């Protein structure tokens, strides 16, 4: 008689067993909730590539595991002023009714203008709204009778409309449907609705953020591609324009030089003078094109030294030859003191170094009213040294510091030559230093200047420059 052996304790034990059972049930429900919430988090963390698939997976998880077999998610579309259905999932009422519901509801956006619509109210008031009629929830997007019929086929009695929000923004709404009446809902179920609304709100926020950042990255990639195309087009244009400018200049400068050299017969003193000016002008244009090409390459970060085996003595001699007539026309003595013995070939950027040498000699002639310009090229231990010394106007003390900065021009130089670009010395410094050399400069205002450079004879020392 085991039962009567503990007659007094029997009801207490029964109560304890009921308590344990109830606690177990609660724990099971809690566990179920936590599992579902974790599932929702995982969907978002798996970085779904688009909003629709992430939202659909969240709605599926809710409809399958929450005890609410009908779950729809609407997302705010501010541009259109509507709540737009992005996922409709039914796990009740059979396949046919489910299919119809998903098709019909997915096509029915709810306008914010319909302030009596329970979904609009839920979103505006930020509270969970209950309705027992599906047609109310989707009014006026779907006809009443068909929607009533659909609700019947789905065996749904109650709808809970929850605003979805995160970080203070309303992102949309979620509608949960159940076969139970509102007053049949347990405390646990009511609590679950609130927790789901929070969790799905955060999930939607993360999904939308991810989609937006993806969209922004895509736009940036496109913009970057366009900029690259534009940059390429600009480069091609500058290359093409300089080629087009240089070609007629080749003829102008070449034929002028030939007239000056007597290739078309003797010329008188005045003809020589005029032709010399024309030749100097053409030479200046050639030089300007090179400066502009180099500056535009520098701006684009494409200014690079292209070293090639070069006889620097030839270059200096050729530039002195070109400018000789200009010096003669001004009554200046231009002389070149070549190195002895001959220098070996050097690995330097011929075009850019030539331009530096040309600029130094051309400046010296331009800024010297009388006297001489002496160009000296010599070996100095492991370097080659070029000096262009003139008896010109010199550079004022207070202008010397800025002389090699872009576009800077000394005031006395501006008076003598208002149209200078202020690019020659700036480029010279860059060209020389990029080849591991140093600029030589000293000047006394009113007495003259020395401009020049040293360059390593056997190429740039490793790590000796920027």
């Amino acid at each position: 008689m085991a039962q009567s052996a503990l007659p007094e304790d029997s009801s207490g034990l029964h109560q304890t067993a009921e308590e344990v059972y109830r606690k177990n049930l609660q724990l099971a429900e809690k566990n179920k909730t936590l599992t579902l919430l974790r599932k929702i988090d995982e969907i978002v963390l798996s970085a779904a590539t688009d909003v629709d698939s992430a939202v659909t997976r969240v709605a599926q998880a809710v409809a399958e595991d929450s005890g609410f077999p009908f779950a729809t998610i609407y997302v705010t579309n501010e541009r259109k002023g509507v709540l737009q259905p992005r996922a409709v999932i039914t796990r009740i009422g059979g396949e046919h009714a489910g299919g119809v519901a998903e098709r019909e509801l997915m096509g029915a956006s709810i306008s914010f203008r319909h302030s009596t619509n329970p979904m609009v109210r839920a979103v505006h008031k930020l509270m969970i709204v209950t309705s027992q009629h599906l047609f109310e929830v989707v009014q006026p997007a779907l006809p009443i009778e068909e929607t009533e019929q659909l609700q019947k086929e789905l065996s749904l009695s109650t709808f809970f409309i929850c605003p979805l929000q995160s970080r203070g923004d309303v992102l949309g709404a979620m509608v949960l449907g159940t076969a139970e009446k509102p007053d049949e809902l347990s405390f646990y179920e009511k609590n679950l609705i609130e927790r789901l609304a929070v969790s799905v709100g955060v999930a939607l926020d993360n999904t939308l953020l991810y989609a937006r950042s993806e969209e922004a990255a895509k736009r940036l990639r496109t913009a970057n591609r366009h900029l690259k195309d534009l940059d390429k087009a600009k480069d091609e244009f500058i290359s093409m324009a300089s080629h087009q400018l240089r070609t007629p200049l080749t003829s102008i400068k070449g034929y002028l030089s030939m007239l000056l050299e007597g290739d078309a017969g003797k010329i008188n003193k005045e003809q020589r003078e005029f032709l010399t000016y024309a030749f100097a002008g053409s030479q200046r244009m050639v030089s300007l094109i090179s400066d502009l090409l180099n500056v535009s390459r520098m701006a684009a970060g494409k200014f690079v030294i292209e070293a090639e085996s070069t006889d620097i003595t030839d270059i200096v001699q050729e530039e002195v030859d070109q400018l000789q007539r200009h010096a003669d026309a001004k009554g200046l003595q231009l002389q070149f003191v070549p190195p002895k013995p001959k220098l070996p070939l050097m690995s330097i950027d011929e075009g850019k170094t030539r331009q530096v040498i040309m600029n130094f000699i051309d400046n010296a002639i331009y800024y010297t009213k009388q006297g001489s310009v002496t160009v000296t090229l010599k070996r100095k231990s492991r370097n080659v040294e070029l000096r262009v010394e003139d008896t010109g106007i010199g550079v004022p003390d207070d202008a010397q510091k800025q002389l090699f900065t872009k576009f800077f021009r000394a005031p006395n130089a501006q008076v003598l030559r208002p149209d200078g670009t202020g690019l020659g010395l700036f480029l010279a410094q860059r060209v020389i230093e990029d080849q591991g050399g140093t600029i030589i400069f000293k000047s006394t205002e009113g007495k003259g200047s020395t401009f020049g450079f040293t360059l390593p004879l056997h190429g740039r020392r490793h790590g000796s420059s920027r």
Partner: protein
Amino acid sequence: MAQAAKTIVLAEDDAVIARMYLTKLTRAGFRVIVCADGKQAYDELKTSQPDFVMMDLNMPELRGFEVIKALMDEGMAPPADRMIILTNSANPADRKLASQIGVDYIIKAEMTPRQIVNRINAKLGLPSH
């Protein structure tokens, strides 16, 4: 007895520039064969062996580098020190290619015809003018 005139093949499609160099080179005692496009230059250099070649880059039919490459492939290219590239191209790739071949790259607008003749004389070991 005077030495036989050295022969120069001048590949240049711009007739005005070609005449300029032709005049200066002839006055300097060279015999000059002018080719007005890349195809003509290729055909000429395939059959003759001039003392020097002046090669433009942007020419119709074949670009200067295409002419050189085609000749190299056939083992018929003139030696690099018997040739100069004469161009106004601002394309750094062109200068790089010339450097790889080992041939001088001259921007036409930067040199007068006399300077170019002097450069050729120096390369051929002839006195300057």
